């Protein structure tokens, strides 16, 4: 349990996660109000990373449920282990026959077996999937439901039930209540609109691409081997790319990958040659690479010119609301 918001920020910073005021406040509130957080934002701004850092900071086990099209209850909640049940039946055959030895009629025998039925439908044969595990594990946990926008609408509805009561019903066993309230974090890349009901139940957090300063401190923290000057150049370059009209913008994780590559290549500065070799780490579409090269080509003398704060000509700035 956190005592204050600054404590949240420090704890996350210790896990190498730089939290803005906004993030720290929401995490603190989620902790206090026992509410799930729904994190939205472009891919690769550290949504999943937040869950990991948070779990480490509060020393809880991170249980992750990755969503995809076609995910259903058996994969998310629980499944009976049929194979194991069959195996046990085989092994226990002798014991069964002794139990049934003195029965006279078939009905009698069936009744006798029915009495033992509980053995086969017990927790022993229940294979807990992430959701059930988060509810039943002995220590409090942190449940990460990743990319909920990829799951089907029916799964979303089912998830609502679990998230509002923190209990699930297994027909053969009855209702299983959460031993501890798990902390819950859902992420979404906003590829589709989530249902209003789900949003209503969550605290909402929108994480956008970081500012130059924030991104620089992230790079410095995660890739300490990169020289400060080069780190600054690199971050400014990435921010510049985000100002262009691209199909896919470079994410923070790609900035980090690129920074690591620069260290690996022992680059002294970001010149044309280095860019030629490494631009594909940042940009994943051939069209984007071409467009970036074309625009960058206009800056004779390479990246050095990009430090200035002149108005950036005809380059549109990154605008997250574009097109809404």
């Amino acid at each position, binding site marked *: 349990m956190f005592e204050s918001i600054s404590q949240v920020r420090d704890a996350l910073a210790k896990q190498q996660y730089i939290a803005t*005021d906004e993030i720290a406040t929401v995490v603190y*509130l989620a902790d206090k109000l026992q509410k799930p957080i729904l994190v939205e934002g472009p891919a690769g701004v550290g949504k999943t990373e937040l869950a990991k850092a948070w779990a480490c900071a509060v020393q809880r086990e991170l249980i992750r449920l990755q969503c995809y099209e*076609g995910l259903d209850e058996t994969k998310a909640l629980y499944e009976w282990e049929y194979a194991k049940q*069959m195996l046990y039946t085989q092994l226990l055959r002798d014991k069964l026959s002794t139990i049934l030895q003195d029965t006279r009629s078939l009905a009698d025998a069936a009744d006798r077996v029915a009495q033992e039925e509980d053995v086969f439908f017990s927790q022993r044969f229940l294979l807990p999937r992430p959701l059930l595990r988060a509810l039943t594990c002995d220590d409090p946990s942190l449940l990460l439901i990743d990319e909920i926008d990829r799951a089907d609408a*029916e799964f979303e509805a089912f998830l609502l039930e679990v998230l509002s009561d923190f209990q699930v019903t297994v027909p053969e066993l009855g209702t299983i209540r959460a031993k501890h309230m798990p902390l819950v974090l859902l992420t979404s890349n906003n590829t589709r609109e989530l249902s*209003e009901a789900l949003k*209503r139940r969550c*605290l909402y957090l929108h994480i956008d691409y970081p500012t130059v300063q924030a991104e620089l401190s992230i790079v410095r923290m995660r890739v300490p081997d990169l020289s400060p000057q080069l780190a600054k150049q690199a971050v400014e370059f990435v921010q510049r790319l985000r100002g262009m009209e691209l199909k896919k913008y470079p994410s923070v994780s790609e900035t980090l990958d690129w920074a690591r590559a620069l260290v690996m290549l022992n680059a002294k500065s970001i010149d044309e040659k280095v860019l030629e070799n490494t631009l594909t780490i940042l940009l994943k579409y051939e069209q984007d690479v071409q467009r970036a090269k074309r625009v960058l080509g206009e800056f004779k003398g390479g990246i050095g010119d990009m430090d200035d704060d002149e108005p950036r000509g005809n380059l549109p700035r990154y605008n997250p609301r574009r*097109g*809404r």
Partner: protein
Amino acid sequence: MDQRIVEFIAALRAAGVRVSLAESADAFRATEVMGVLERNWFKSALRTTLIKEEPDQEVFEKLFPYYFGSGGPPLLNPTEGMSPEDADLLKDALRALLGDNERLKDLLKYIMQGLNPSQAELDEMGRRAGVPLSRQDYQQQWLARRMMRQLGMDQEFQELVRQLMERLREMGMSDEALRELAARIRANEGILQEQIENYVGQQIARQQAEQNPRQPFEGPDLMHRKFQNLSESDIQELRHQVRRLAARLRSRAALRMKKGKRGTLDAKKTIRTNLRNGGVPLELKHKIHHQKPKLVIICDVSTSVRPVAEFMLRLVYELQDQIAKARPFIFIDDITDIGAAFQQYRPEVAVEMVLAANPAGYYNTNLGYSLAHFTQDYFDAVDHRTTVIILGDGRNNYLNPRLDAVEEIKKRARKILWFNNEDPRLWGTGDSDMLEYLPYFDSVHEVSNLAQLAEAIDKLFDIYA
């Protein structure tokens, strides 16, 4: 404070943000936990509980200061840091200059003594300036200026300040003290202005909320209004709703797909399910039938059909994940392949670009020629799995309708559909060739408003239709 939060939520709702009862309850709990001392935290607490959609953040940012601003920074006290003698000098000078000038009494109280206007005083000033009648954002600046003028902030006041300074200098106030005083007076003018602007903004937001306690979005109504009767702002509003609409269509499409219980046997799933039956396959499992439609869309973008075409393209591309492949074409006098734009840019941008690049009104619609040209140059887009949709009003300027081209398309495509934005009663009147085209089409939908358009698109996903 609770009352303030309630009013704030009402204002958010009036501005079109959906806030449910549960969410407002959350907001109260969150602010209780957070306390009101740290403004930024308080703000975050409200935002995270009330605003669940990124575009709504803007509204939140705009309204928040009106309700929880300090109403602008407090006024400075000009005598603060002055020696007692200087303060006395100032008082004397003011008295000598003004006597009992009633007109500037209030203004001087604020500026010269640093007393902040009370809520009652602001209300009174506002009433005189006509603030309670305003419900329009754009009137804020104007009303604030009017309040300032009525307070007496004008040339005369500036002249008075100048005289005051002169007199104080004559009375022997040091240059340094004078400079300090002048700076504080100037600062106070700015602060007072800000306080008043905030007050006006807050009042306007409140009055909007009161006048309009329900959500102003006339969603259902707008969806059923004919495209041609929509104003530019209505269209803007509907654009925002397209995503939501698409979400609904998507879940319907997904649900239907689940029901598909024909087709290939899923051996793996069947064995697994039937383990409980001792391996006897009592329950058969089939592969989920993901037959997504393959579309060719031919849109008329002449003036009359333009808005429909825009929404058609937006909706189809919002539903991309439910579609195997879509090839979009537009025409006025000739057919144009606009697939490239959609490949390069995100759909919203592409739609805007395409429409901007093909302005209406310069050419005469020639559907027949466009279709014939389509069968000549782009016929590779059509195969036996493709559904061809023509969106237009079927008005051909008395030119050759080229029914042969339509027949050719019909022969090759899986289905050929027509989305018409005109009332069926008008089909065949004037230059409309609709009735001649009619027999060639598998189905024809009237799409004169967004609801009908959504319904027609929804039908595309019906795999058994």
